[in-house]
């Protein structure tokens, strides 16, 4: 029999695919039949795999629980640390604000005390001081009430800084400084 050398063009012209037929026929001929034994073997292997998988799952769950507990512990510790640090920062800021308020209060009080002293001084010795001021003014010098006021403010400030300032601040929160001074 003469051998035929197939080409794609021949296949297209024939409208028949000998290669596909040949491959299909061989595959069908050698196709294995369904084996119940093999089926049972695979089912048992899957069952055994499932059992070992479930045992592994139990082990994994135990490990997961331990990991979870450790995670909770670490989170709680971190939270406590964060709260402690936050509290320290807050306390520091409050103390700084309190110190600044005390400083402001002392300055304010000092200036008031000084002005009262200068005023009372001027009122008590009005004639002499007026004359002195006039004399200083005529000599082209500054009146003495200015330096006097400065000296008085410095003295009052130094006096007040020796006082227990926390007590002063506590009183300041309920009463304006002028009122307390008036008392």
């Amino acid at each position, binding site marked *: *029999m*003469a*051998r*035929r*050398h*197939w*080409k*794609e063009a*021949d*296949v297209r*012209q*024939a*409208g*028949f695919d*000998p*290669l*596909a*037929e*040949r*491959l*299909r*026929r*061989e*595959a069908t001929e*050698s*196709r*294995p*039949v*369904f*084996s119940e034994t*093999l*089926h049972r*073997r*695979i*089912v048992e*292997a*899957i069952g055994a*795999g*499932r059992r070992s*998988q479930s045992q592994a799952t139990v082990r994994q769950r135990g490990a997961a629980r331990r990991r979870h507990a450790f995670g909770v512990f670490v989170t709680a510790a971190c939270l406590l640390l964060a709260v402690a640090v936050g509290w320290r920062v807050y306390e520091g800021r409050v103390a700084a604000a309190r110190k600044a308020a005390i400083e402001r209060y002392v300055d304010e009080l000092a200036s008031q005390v000084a002005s009262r002293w200068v005023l009372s001084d001027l009122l008590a010795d009005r004639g002499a001081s007026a004359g002195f001021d006039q004399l200083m003014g005529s000599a082209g010098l500054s009146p003495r009430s200015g330096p006097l006021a400065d000296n008085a403010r410095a003295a009052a400030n130094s006096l007040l800084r020796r006082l227990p300032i926390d007590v002063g601040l506590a009183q300041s929160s309920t009463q304006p400084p002028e009122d307390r001074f008036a008392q």
Partner: protein
Amino acid sequence: MAGKAGLASRTDEQLAYQAQCGCAASFEELLRRFQTPVLAFLRQRGSTRDAEDVLQETFLRAYENLHRYRPRWAFSTWLFTIARRTSINYCRREQPDANSPAAEAATSAGRQPIEELMAVESRQRMWEVAAAALTEEQVTAVWLHYVEEMPTEEIARVLGRSRGSVKTMLFRARKRLLPLLSEFDEGIAVVDGVADEKVGTNYG
């Protein structure tokens, strides 16, 4: 749960979904359906005894990874993908003898000269010649295309290639196998009768 008759009427994808939900009977039904085609596919790639071991490993892997299956693809595509990969891994692990078709296809990439193939073809089946003449990917593509009648897109999915490259692969495989086909006297005799009826001419 549905009985055996109920399971038999369901599609592969429906059974896979039920198996994902924990229905062991559905997976067993899938196992029944695919035992023969997957075993035939694996036998073509290696020895008969190894094929059964690889089949078992394939179904085990499929069961373990069932949660990863998405019904966007046919269940057969997914299963053949696993079967192919398992077979490749098995061949690498077991270091098969150099004469097995799968080993030849994998190692020599099936690029033997046509004369050599002509010399050995008379004692072999066409698939064995194909395994020696083509690459592993080409043989897989040809098997899935002609035997499993899988669309090109699904073959591309199994091989992890594009549709275009699968088409090229099939075209090249045909180009290489067609000349070898004439060497199968028995096959030609059968083919001759049908072809002559259709064409009415002889090719010398």
